[in-house]
């Protein structure tokens, strides 16, 4: 077993290096970041969360982030440092659902308390200042925390009309201008929600304002916390990772943290055994629905969607879309309004240009036409080539 020995050595070396890296980074942040705004430990105590519960939470979170247990203490430090990280949160073309999700996170653990300590230097939905004073706050954040603050973006950028479908602030700058200025001086940019990640609803066909996600419009790389809205736990975990390593966690090819978006809904779904067995809800409220059977036939897009909703659930783990009997609509995937439509039927039942024109119906018609064409050709050939046979006989 030499081979496996080498392997485990390599792995442990890797983690040792990572640990070194983590230490260096946490020391650097300790020097560079402003003092804490809030004391997490006080807050935990006030909410009746014991030290033991906190330790337990760090181990859950560490494994969620796909790190070995040796990183638990580092994660605890990151959580305690959460309030030191200055955040500027921008709103563009969006619905504020991501803000709501983030304000109302209740994970049955510590995550929501950690989130409460977050230091929002700029956030239009919660900040007290408005107008000129609000603008000053943003400028101050960019000046005081240059290359140290994290820019969180909620919302897409409309490119049409030279960006004027969205103008902001007393000077009426376009959203694109502001996005450029702020992301340029930020240490990192995190896109929260499908709008900022990939454009989402305003970018659905025919995309009247030519909206798109941040990374596409600005040509910068962003961390994409996908979902409409995403689970705030995915946001917290990503920031914790940043506070440990000074960089973003491993991402998939479209910018989503792999620890949260590495698996399909379908592969971690509580109804999966019914799928494999061939037990489907055929219409809403039928017996299958009452028994919690698979929602594929009523349009579940779990097979095409990468996310951890079924694992972490929403709102204090109360539920998630599949649990409430409606299929997943694929909200963590780019372009899902178009690619996942119709939302309440399997994708191949999409109507092409209205009415009953689905691929299968078109396929059937073409098959019929082909068969008819073949038959007509057979008859015509029989007539046309009749003479030929006779000619040949005379040879």
């Amino acid at each position: 077993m030499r081979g496996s020995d080498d392997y485990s050595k390599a792995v442990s070396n890797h983690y040792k290096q990572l640990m070194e890296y983590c230490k260096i980074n946490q020391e650097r942040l300790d020097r560079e970041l402003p003092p804490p705004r809030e004391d997490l430990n006080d807050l935990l105590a006030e909410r009746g969360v014991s030290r033991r519960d906190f330790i337990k939470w760090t181990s859950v979170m560490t494994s969620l982030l796909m790190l070995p247990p040796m990183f638990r203490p580092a994660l605890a430090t990151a959580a305690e440092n959460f309030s030191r990280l200055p955040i500027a949160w921008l709103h563009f073309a969006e619905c504020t659902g991501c803000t709501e999700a983030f304000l109302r996170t209740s994970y049955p653990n510590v995550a929501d308390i950690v989130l409460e300590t977050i230091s929002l230097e700029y956030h239009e939905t919660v900040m007290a200042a408005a107008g000129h004073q609000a603008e000053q706050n943003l400028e101050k954040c960019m000046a005081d925390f240059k290359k140290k603050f994290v820019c969180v973006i909620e919302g897409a950028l409309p490119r049409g009309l030279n960006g004027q479908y969205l103008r902001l602030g007393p000077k009426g700058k376009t959203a694109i201008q502001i996005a450029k200025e702020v992301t340029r001086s930020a240490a990192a940019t995190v896109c929260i929600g499908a709008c900022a990640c990939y454009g989402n609803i305003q970018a659905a066909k025919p995309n009247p304002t030519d909206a798109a996600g941040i990374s596409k419009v600005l040509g910068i790389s962003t961390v994409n916390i996908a979902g409409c809205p995403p689970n705030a736990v995915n946001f917290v975990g990503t920031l914790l990772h940043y506070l440990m390593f000074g960089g973003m966690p491993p991402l998939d090819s479209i910018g989503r943290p792999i620890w949260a978006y590495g698996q399909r809904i379908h592969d971690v779904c509580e109804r999966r055994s019914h799928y494999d067995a061939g037990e489907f809800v055929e219409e809403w409220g039928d017996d299958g629905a009452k028994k919690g059977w698979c929602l594929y036939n009523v349009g579940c897009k779990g097979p095409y969607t990468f996310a951890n909703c079924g694992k972490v659930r929403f709102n204090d783990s109360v539920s998630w879309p599949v649990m409430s009997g409606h299929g997943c609509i694929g909200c963590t995937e780019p372009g899902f309004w178009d690619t996942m439509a119709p939302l309440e039927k399997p994708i191949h039942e999409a109507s092409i240009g209205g009415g009953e024109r689905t691929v299968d119906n078109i396929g059937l018609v073409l098959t019929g036409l082909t068969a008819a064409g073949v038959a007509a050709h057979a008859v015509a050939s029989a007539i046309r080539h009749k003479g030929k046979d006779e000619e040949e006989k005379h040879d």
Partner: protein
Amino acid sequence: MEIRPVKEWSAAIMINHWAMALSIFVLIVTGFYIADPYTIYQGETVDKFFVGNMRYVHILFGIFLLFIFIWRLYLAFFSKFHADWKDFFAWLDFECTWDQIKFYLLIKKDPPEHCALYGPMQSLAYSGLFFMIFVILVTGLILMGAGYHAGMTAFLYKIFKPVENMLGGLAIVRYVHHIFTWLFILFIIVHVYMAFWYDAILKEGTVSSMISGVLFEKEGK
């Protein structure tokens, strides 16, 4: 008139052909079930694995098809009997192709002289078919890779992931896979008909050739 048998196909090509035909047939049937599964009502959930089995068979034959296809490509380039890869481009002789179309449309009574193994339209159809197989393999492998994160599947999935992103996600990959299923059905109808039609018109034994490997040519041709 003298009719003499000519060896047209090697055994390898014939076996390859019928293996491919079988795989495609199984893939169409299981594929449509996967797309539109009906509920199996009798029995307990734990005792049932119908969709699971259908997927298993589908993927199994999908992998068969992958190997058959690779084998067919090998034959096209390295067959000792007849490496026919050039013959797939017979349709580039446009004049000949046009004549062939006229023959099919019953405007001309006789087919043009073949300059290659396949007639020009045949070559076009088979080139198209190879393309279809390629697409359905790639999309199939992506769909497979999305669910399994180990071994060769994962490796191929890494390679093809950009294709998934380019197409716009797994849902579109699956949709394309589904559309191509219909293209196979259309191909098969025309293909089988043409095989019989050739037989009837040219009396060269086209149908049986894929079984015996022998085509009957008339003297003087």
